[in-house]
């Protein structure tokens, strides 16, 4: 279990939030990234999520990648093994299972995502894992960022 203090939330940030935060510096996602960098919350990323972010950033804006690297250096890593993914087949879209497993392996309190269709509005996930999935806007409201 990672080193954490009880008063800070442990959050796994989905790549959707990181990408939005980098592309739109005045939005709620950017605010969440800043909170991670400043140590207001404990942030976790998985290698797959890092990979997704890098591939989604526009190639003609290398400064975004640099910003992401600075942000990522303040996050801890949550590993996910291939064989662990089988567990949530039929509950979560297969392409999103790695996010759920990463959150569980990190001991995260919440997953922050903008993916309404596959994660935020998936009620079945709540029955199998005690990690809440919320938007950046909700996180900001809850912890008064």
């Amino acid at each position, binding site marked *: 279990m990672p080193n954490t203090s009880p008063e800070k939330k442990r959050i796994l940030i989905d790549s959707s939030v990181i*990408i*939005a935060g980098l592309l*739109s510096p005045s939005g709620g996602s950017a605010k969440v990234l800043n909170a991670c960098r400043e140590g207001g919350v404990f942030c976790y990323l998985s290698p*797959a999520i890092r990979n*997704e972010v890098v591939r989604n950033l526009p190639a003609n804006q290398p400064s975004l990648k640099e910003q992401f690297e600075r942000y990522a250096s303040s996050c801890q890593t949550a590993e996910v093994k*291939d064989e662990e*993914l089988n567990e949530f087949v039929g509950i979560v879209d297969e*392409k*999103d*299972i790695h996010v759920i497993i990463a959150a569980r392996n990190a001991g995260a309190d919440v997953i922050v995502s903008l993916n309404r269709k596959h994660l935020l509005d998936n009620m079945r996930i709540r029955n199998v894992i005690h990690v809440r999935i919320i938007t950046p806007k909700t996180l900001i409201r809850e912890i008064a960022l």
Partner: protein
Amino acid sequence: MPTATIPAIYTRGKIIPAAKPPFEEPDEVMVTFIKYPLTAQESDEDPDEVLFRKIEPQYRAVREDVVKEMYPEFYAKYIAGKKENPD
């Protein structure tokens, strides 16, 4: 007094009828400009969610590529197989 309303397009200061006028030589033509209010969804929606929806198709394709490369056994078993046999 017969009147009729037809749709029109307003562009670059010109009004262009979008249907055939019912009278060949009307005595008078009135123009009504309408501005619809924003829907609740458009005005209240989180801009980050709007941004995400714009990039979502590419984002999903990238997510699939990453799963294929990083979790090849899982991909072969559950995603590639599903594509071949969608039922």
